[in-house]
């Protein structure tokens, strides 16, 4: 909702005054930052409220605003001391966000989330009606949801059976969980991996089994936030592919450089594990041709020959 002019200012004042009543003596700077306005704008809002109040408009009827040493104290504003109900867009944004958390393992347990949603729905009333019209689906952890939530809550070590797609195998390892991240609709566990003795990120839907161990997780400081799960700089392989007409989407789907477009599209992809590239080429069944590295070409050939042999009565 974008509102300007008098309606915008009034909407802000009706939110500002109850907020200030809760925080007598809050500084102008803090209040302005919280409401995303300049200090001048805040001063003019307050100046305006000062002239308003109950019918009669005698001094006792008016809202009292005192500004001493840039600290705000509002009194005598009982009629508008409670905030206005949630507007529909406010209710929708908050509730849709909360509902998205349902599939993310929670250190508090799922019932807490349900309670918060129920209370807010009740408090929002009609404004909550539309909240199911905005839905964020997050891929969670499935069956290991409980174990992950418990490990985070109790700060304990986890034993993971983790599927590594590039190698197409399940690995066993112990990890000390640090935190959960949600990126592009997938949830990831960031943890200290004792097998690699390094920080690792695990996609939750690839965790086949998670068991909470009795060992407490060793305390480690939370590393700075990451914005990207895949770091192309760190990818050791450069895979070159000739891309046929039916597979041109490949260049949009993965970060890559276009090396040639004529007579055919040739792209180069940074790849962390050749196994991933082998699967991609095999999946695309001849519409993509590996050009380099030779290890990739060999791996594709070996896999395809072996697999095909089984259909020819092998």
């Amino acid at each position, binding site marked *: 909702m974008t509102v300007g002019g008098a*309606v915008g200012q009034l909407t802000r004042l009706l939110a500002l005054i109850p907020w200030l009543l809760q925080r007598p003596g809050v500084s102008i700077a803090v209040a302005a930052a919280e409401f995303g306005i300049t200090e001048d704008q805040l001063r003019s809002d307050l100046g305006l409220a000062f002239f308003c109040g109950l019918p009669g408009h005698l001094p006792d009827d008016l809202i009292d605003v005192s500004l001493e040493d840039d600290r705000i104290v509002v009194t005598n504003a009982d009629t508008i001391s409670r905030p206005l109900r949630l507007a529909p867009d406010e209710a929708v944004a908050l509730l849709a966000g909360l509902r998205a958390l349902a599939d993310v393992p929670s250190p508090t347990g799922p019932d807490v989330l349900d309670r918060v949603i129920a209370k807010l729905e009740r408090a929002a009333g009609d404004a909550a009606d539309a909240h199911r019209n905005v839905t964020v689906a997050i891929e969670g952890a499935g069956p290991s949801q409980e174990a992950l939530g418990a490990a985070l809550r109790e700060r304990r070590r986890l034993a993971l059976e983790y599927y590594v797609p590039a190698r197409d195998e399940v690995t066993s390892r112990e990890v000390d969980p640090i935190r959960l991240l949600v990126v592009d609709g997938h949830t990831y566990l960031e943890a200290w991996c004792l097998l690699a003795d390094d920080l690792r990120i695990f996609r939750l839907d690839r965790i086949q089994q998670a068991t909470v161990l009795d060992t407490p997780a060793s305390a480690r400081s939370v590393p700075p936030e990451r914005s990207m799960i895949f770091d192309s700089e760190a990818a050791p392989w450069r895979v070159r592919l000739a891309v046929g007409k039916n597979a041109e989407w490949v260049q949009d789907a993965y970060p890559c450089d276009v090396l040639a477009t004529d007579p055919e599209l040739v792209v180069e992809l940074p790849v962390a594990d050749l196994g991933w590239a082998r699967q991609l*080429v095999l999946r695309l069944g001849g519409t993509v041709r590996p050009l380099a590295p030779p290890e990739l070409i060999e791996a594709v050939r070996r896999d395809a020959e072996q697999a095909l042999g089984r259909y020819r009565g092998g």
Partner: protein
Amino acid sequence: MAAPRTERLLNLVICLLASTRFLTKDQVRRAVPQYADCATDEAFERMFERDKDDLREMGIPLETGSNEVLFDDEIGYRIPRDAYALPEVSFDSQELAVLGVAARMWQHATLAGATGRAIRKLESAGIDVDRDALSVVEPRIDAAEPAFAALWDAVQQRRRVRFEYARGGGTVAERALQPWGLVSWHGRWYVVGHDEDRDDTRVFRLSRVLGEVSPIGPTGSVVVPDGVDISASVRMLARPAPTQLGRLRIAAGRALPLRRLGTVVVEEPDAVVVDVPYDDVEQLASTVTGFGPAVLAISPVELCDAVARRLTSTLRSLAVAGSGEGA
């Protein structure tokens, strides 16, 4: 100038909230100083009408009625406090922590702004939202598609929209849509609604919406049919309902994503036989071939043929690469 109008509106809100009885227009005119200054009745009438519209637009519950139902009293106005104010609500410390996570999850300015206003209202009602709590859970939800803000507004206002949409093969078509809702699925946003040109339910990917989304017609004109499950319709349309079963033998510990899609029929010492539902045989064949010799298609014949054909053309393409590139 906004300030005198804001002042008048604030006085109006306070006066209507303070009164438990309906106030007649004359009483309102006397109670709000800025109205008392009106030179003529017409000027006041015009001003008051406009102010009522503004309050209602803000979501302030302005009631009309009369105090004496039996007498044909003049119509009056009031704002019932319990309908105006955020109801009393309280949260325990765990619930406050969850609210704190929700407060920081949206990255998009429109949604972050709306969430921020909601959280501030809760805080203004004395609820101490723990904004730094549960730092072990950091969900970030973005909406990078340029069309998001306009479609969010349209869904909130129940307003029809028009936009240009890129179809496969590089063609562009204009669409008129009654938007019902927005869904984020695997990190991508979709809008679900009634496509007026096709007279049917359609799902559009926001990243394929080109240029501006123009609202058409009045707000409130879109009616979401009862029982529509927005997120289910996206899943359904994005992935057609599987109609057939393919039987696969999957080597132990391999091809987990494929194994998850199906039901295990037989457990063997070094493999499992799994029935996987599918709709598009080429799509399943593609997934199967990706795992190389770890997955063998057993039935139906069309699936086995499709897999074998794909493997054959992969090998043929390698022969081309070998002779042409000398790689």
